[in-house]
């Protein structure tokens, strides 16, 4: 900082710039972990790197990834949402039951999304305006929304038959040899990533997560933005629910169970922080991919079901520990 030292320091900085820039990318650790894991697995199982298996693996994480994208936004704001799993089931169930009652399935899907939005609106209003803690509010909403799904179906999965092919194409079709679901995921990720980086509204989420009091004093309508956040999270969960219906032709009231924790885990593996202000859409995707690969590996390596949750838990801890250790220096 003194005049004399300035020059050498600066040169040092210039030299390391690109390397540092790469190293500074928050998602780097996880990309490396994924690559290493893939290499190991491809040696252990010849079918691992086959196109089929890759497509299969991605297909298996589409729903988690879509929900995680929504969850990222909630996490970035410093909140989170335990109700996404229930919203997912409810959206599917509402759509399914309306379609079974003879409504056009696309219209029914719109109602399903509207129901999700309503749930997000209620959550958002309570968190934003009444200032209930997000954990407890969304835990409560998890019950309420799950309840709606049960009431609508009276517990039974709805088998949706006779709906237009166009609707089923979403979840079951192929485009250019790749499942439509994967295309949808790609669009969601690219759009959401762009929005989260560049859109003024989305940046407000980062402001709030980074310093809520300051955001308020800077004229950001914190409670209003929070309402939007939970609406967005619920919207993506709703989309995932409707896609699930389209994929399986079945709307089960239990469809999204446990999705909330999977999604949060994926986001955190991908670098989001529970204290807010940090997290990217790309990270959420990578986190989901890592979880998907691990799940895939468990089957490929024929790990006993009784060992699976042990292994999954271990991988989760290992991934985050690695991340913490590699980012330790920056933190302190």
């Amino acid at each position, binding site marked *: 900082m003194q005049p004399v030292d300035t020059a050498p320091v600066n040169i040092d900085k210039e030299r390391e710039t690109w390397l540092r820039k790469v190293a500074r990318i928050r998602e780097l650790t996880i990309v490396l972990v994924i690559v290493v894991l893939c290499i190991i697995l491809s040696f252990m199982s010849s079918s691992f790197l086959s196109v089929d298996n890759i497509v299969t693996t991605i297909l298996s994480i589409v729903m988690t990834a879509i929900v995680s994208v929504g969850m990222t936004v909630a996490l970035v704001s410093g909140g989170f949402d335990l109700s996404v799993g229930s919203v997912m089931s409810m959206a599917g169930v509402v759509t399914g039951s309306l379609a079974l009652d003879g409504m056009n399935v696309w219209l029914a899907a719109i109602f399903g999304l509207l129901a999700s939005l309503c749930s997000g609106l209620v959550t958002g209003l309570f968190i934003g305006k009444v200032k209930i803690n997000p954990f407890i509010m969304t835990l409560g909403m998890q019950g309420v929304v799950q309840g709606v799904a049960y009431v609508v179906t009276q517990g039974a999965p709805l088998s949706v038959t006779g709906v237009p092919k166009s609707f089923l194409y979403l979840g079951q079709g192929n485009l250019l040899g790749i499942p439509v679901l994967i295309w949808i995921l790609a669009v969601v990720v690219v759009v959401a990533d762009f929005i989260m980086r560049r859109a003024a509204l989305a940046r407000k989420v980062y402001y709030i997560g980074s310093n809520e*009091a*300051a955001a308020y004093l800077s004229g950001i309508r914190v409670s209003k933005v929070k309402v939007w956040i939970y609406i967005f999270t619920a919207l993506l969960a709703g989309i995932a629910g409707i896609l699930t219906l389209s994929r399986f032709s079945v709307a089960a009231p239990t469809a999204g169970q446990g999705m909330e924790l999977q999604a949060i885990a994926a986001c955190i593996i991908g670098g989001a922080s529970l204290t807010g202000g940090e997290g990217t859409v790309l990270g959420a995707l990578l986190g989901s991919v890592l979880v998907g690969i691990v799940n895939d590996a468990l089957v490929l390596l024929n790990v006993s079901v009784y060992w699976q949750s042990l292994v999954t838990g271990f991988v989760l801890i290992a991934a985050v520990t690695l991340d913490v250790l590699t980012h330790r220096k920056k933190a302190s």
Partner: protein
Amino acid sequence: MCLTRTLLEAKGIRKVFPGTVALDHVSFELLEGEIHALMGENGAGKSTFLKIVTGALQPDAGEIYIAGRSVKMHSPVDARRMGVAIVHQELSLFPDISVMENILVGQTPTRAGFMRRRQMQEICEHYLERFQVRFSPTDVVKDLSVSQQQIVEIVKALVTDADVYIFDEPTSALSVDDASRLFGVLRELKSKGKGVIYVSHKFDEIFQLSDRITVLRDGSLIGTVPTSETNADEVIRMMVGRSIERIYPEKGRPNGQVLLKVQNLNAGSKCRNVSFELHKGEILGVFGLVGSGRTEIMRAMAGIAPRTSGEIAMDGHAVRIHTVQDAMRHGLYYLTEDRKEQGLFLKMSIRDNVAVTHLERLSKRGLIQRGPARDLANNVIRDLRVKAKDDEQLVGSLSGGNQQKVMIGKWISRQPKVLILDEPTRGIDVGAKAEIHQLLRRLANEGIGIIVISSELPEIVGLSDRVMVIHNGAVAGILTGQQLNDETIMEFASGLHKETAVG
């Protein structure tokens, strides 16, 4: 004067918090082209008043006029729309986000809802240049030093095109140079006919800068006087209700016995080869420009931050200090500069805050004895003259000066040998400051060695027996006697005497 417009006026403002009347019948007027200083003790209600005129708080009674029109402000957005910009006392930045987004929060240039990054960068560079900063608009704020963050905060207000600019203690973490650059900007605003409200506890700044001074005491308006027709003593009398004869206590007479000897302390780039001695009964001032590494040196010495090398001896014996507990065992205590974030438990009582450093002594068979804990807290309240209802009052509800006293209290009640205070009077009013100075001198006279880090030159000169000047992480010089004057200290602090000072 009669022809100038009134930009902002408040009449009969009243604000009650549960348990306190923060403001009562406060009226205030800001004219076009005026720098109006707002002064008062800690807790007098200055920040509360500013929050009310910027819409962050709603008054319980009173009227606000902007450009002569009565207005109601429901949120900070309203104030901004009406042309009032504010730099808050507490840093209100977003640590995870880039400088330019911090500066342009709430007024991001957009196209179809998306940010225009290029344009944002240009706007920010334009303003940052004035402060000759060494960071770029795309840097993330949490990587900046405190003083750099304060500049970002100031620029944040400057980019808004407002008629009224409000600064609540903007210089508490600024270097002298940066502060004078800020004054340049303020005078420029004034010449453009804008109004500025300026809050500070630093008298020299107020008298350099302001046109009029308004004084608050205990939430009431004491009066408004033109700066040219008053002096520091009178303002102090208005603030405190009595006059304070000596701001700085008499110097001590340390006996030269070495209490603490530090040799070749190294810890990263901000603590390089630091060696010095501290004598019994001495107050050693530590000065350096903001960011020079004073905090880092002391943290490394007190076992809080890891160090790469260095020997520490107390009373002539080498001691191992690698953790806070080691330091505490040897009676060496470090009082952080960040009272709120690292020093106090704001949601807990005074009793709990004092007890935290005495848990072993206060507990019998693992249980805390309530009686002794209460007595201890009450002793601190009495000895340090903490203004509090009782020892169960929450520390967060005390004024800044009283909070600082509680923090000092929790350590000195442990019988320190060496007390290191990092910016002990930052943001503290004259009255409390004088009391803290007296207290430190009294402690020193009892034989304790005291190290005081401060960014305020007058304080360093007035309080210290010797001064250690830090420049860029290394000791630039240790000054005594005649050398204890503003000019010499500043010369060392800016690195001009580097070679000559350290042998």
